[in-house]
């Protein structure tokens, strides 16, 4: 896959001369040679997986959109009632958890992009220098990515527990009257969860950047060194611009992670005051006491719309490149 990155290098990606004839497409697979049986086989190969994917992912996404304009207790189909925008109105104007949830999702993204992402880039650049023990460091930083979010939640609870946790025990806040309730205090808990989320995200970003750095043409760096550029200047003017495709991926991954954030908060405190998230609000309409399908779907639609703002431009740019290739 390194060739893909090489294509992105400023030099290599020199635009084709205007007016140049488009490269003729190769005749893929000689379709004329396909027998009737081949066509049936091919048709099945494509349709079976597609039906499963569309039925479970896209039909449900569209059903979410449709149900968002209804009320439904989930029991029988005849209890579905069309209510127009009422769910959204109630959500925006009356639900005390909605706007905090939106805000927390935004904070989640901002924190991930501002702290663990540059940290991951920093680590990747250092470990890319082929220093000793590079493998050991890499494993240490990457270990959290292998753990499930639920396990991460349990591990960090041991750190944050007011009575028995590592932090309070060290700073002497584990006695009555001095408690710092990292998980219970609505002013603190979001940040406490975000430390755990960042702990994981750093390793993830490090790996993505390490792969990106492997694709940066070494001759570019050499040329820059010969020209007398320092390490920082080379990074700023040569390496970082060449990492553009990786940066795009990192941005998309981080936004999606921020929108999907769920497990960690669920294990920590179930999304109580201070850590509300859109994903938690959707889910609490299913596994909580109240089964308000329409209302839950309305929250899901908000989540869907925010995701599409990211997904569509990303896909457009990716597939435009694909077409050109």
């Amino acid at each position, binding site marked *: 896959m390194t060739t893909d990155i090489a294509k992105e290098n400023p030099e290599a990606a020199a635009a084709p001369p205007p007016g140049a004839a488009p490269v003729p497409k190769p005749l893929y697979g000689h379709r004329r040679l396909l027998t009737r049986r081949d066509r049936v086989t091919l048709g099945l190969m494509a349709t079976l997986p*597609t039906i499963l994917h569309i039925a479970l992912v896209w039909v449900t*996404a569209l059903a979410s959109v449709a149900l968002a304009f209804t009320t439904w207790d989930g029991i029988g189909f005849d209890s579905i009632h069309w209510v127009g925008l009422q769910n959204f109105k109630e959500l925006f104007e009356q639900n005390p958890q909605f706007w905090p949830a939106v805000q927390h999702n935004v904070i989640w993204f901002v924190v991930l992009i501002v702290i663990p992402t540059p940290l991951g880039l920093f680590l990747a650049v250092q470990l890319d220098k082929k*220093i000793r023990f590079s493998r050991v460091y890499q494993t240490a930083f990457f270990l959290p990515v292998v*753990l499930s979010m*639920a396990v991460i939640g349990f591990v960090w609870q041991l750190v944050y527990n007011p009575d028995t946790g590592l932090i309070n025990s060290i700073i002497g806040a*584990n006695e009555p009257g001095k408690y710092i309730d990292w998980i219970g205090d609505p002013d603190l808990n979001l940040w406490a969860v975000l430390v755990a989320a960042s702990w994981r995200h750093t390793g993830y970003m490090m790996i993505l950047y390490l792969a990106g750095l492997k694709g940066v043409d070494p001759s570019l760096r050499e040329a820059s060194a010969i020209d007398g550029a320092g390490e920082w200047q080379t990074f700023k003017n040569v390496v970082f611009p060449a990492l553009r495709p990786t940066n795009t991926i990192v941005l998309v991954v981080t936004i999606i992670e921020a929108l999907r954030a769920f497990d960690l908060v669920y294990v920590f405190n179930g999304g109580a005051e201070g850590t509300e998230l859109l994903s938690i609000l959707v*889910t609490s309409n299913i*596994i909580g006491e109240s089964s308000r399908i329409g209302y839950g779907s309305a929250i899901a639609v908000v989540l869907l719309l925010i995701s599409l703002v990211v997904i569509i431009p990303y896909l457009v*740019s990716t597939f435009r490149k694909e077409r050109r290739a």
Partner: protein
Amino acid sequence: MSTIAVRRRAPIRPGRVLLHVVLATMALAWLAPLAWAIYAALRPYAETSEKGYVSLPDTLNLDNFTDAFTQSDMTHYFVNTLVIAVPAVLLTLFLSSMVAFYVSRFDFRVNLALLLVFTAGNLLPQQVIITPLYRMYLLVDLPGITMSGKLYDSALGLVLIHVAFQSGFCAFVLSNYMKMLPHELTEAALVDGASVWRLYWQITLPLCRPAMAALATLLSIWIYNDFFWALVLISTGENMPITSALNNLSGQYFTDPNLVAAGALLTAIPTLIVYFLLQRQFVSGLTLGANKG
């Protein structure tokens, strides 16, 4: 390559030493939460509640691990996870490689649209689709096929959603991979009269082995670690996979953090083993999809 010459002349560079100090400190900080969990899990509850957690140990033993394992019937939940993860990984790879083959080796008009549908589907947050999916699973009656008689609360239901959701990512990665294979290979076989299925099964798939191995590692860890789908789509404690079962069990053990720590660590062991054995595959799997973009 001038740096090599420099290094030879001056074996100890202050910059390098500083870098190692920084990296080692950070690495230790990164391992600290896990080390803390291990330390807590190795100590008996009676001792830590008396002496506090930040204290030197009198006893270190594996009792919490054996207790967590036996008291919570972990074998049962590990088996539940296996029953979900193994078919899910295999089916995902099988189905997504067929789609990838279709879109990357032939120039049908629907190819781009098809690939778009799969890729975009995988980028959606799971919570966007969960509400109707949950109702749908309750509606599908499967008497005699699943224990619950429905798609809901069954391993089959979890396998299906994992396959449907993850095949988006895999189809995208595999189609990129297949596009790099030379077309002459399959064309020659096609001219010789080989069937399409043969082109896929005997020529294309074997060439995709590295990508398939990477994806298999990645999928195993992802599906094993799944918490969300199981939380919503499984209601009976008995049927839960290990990660969501642990959440259930921790409620019963909340008075003994040491035991919870041991349970959480036990849950993590299979993924850690997979990671240490197949590190290369796992990492390349993560970046296979990412480098293209």
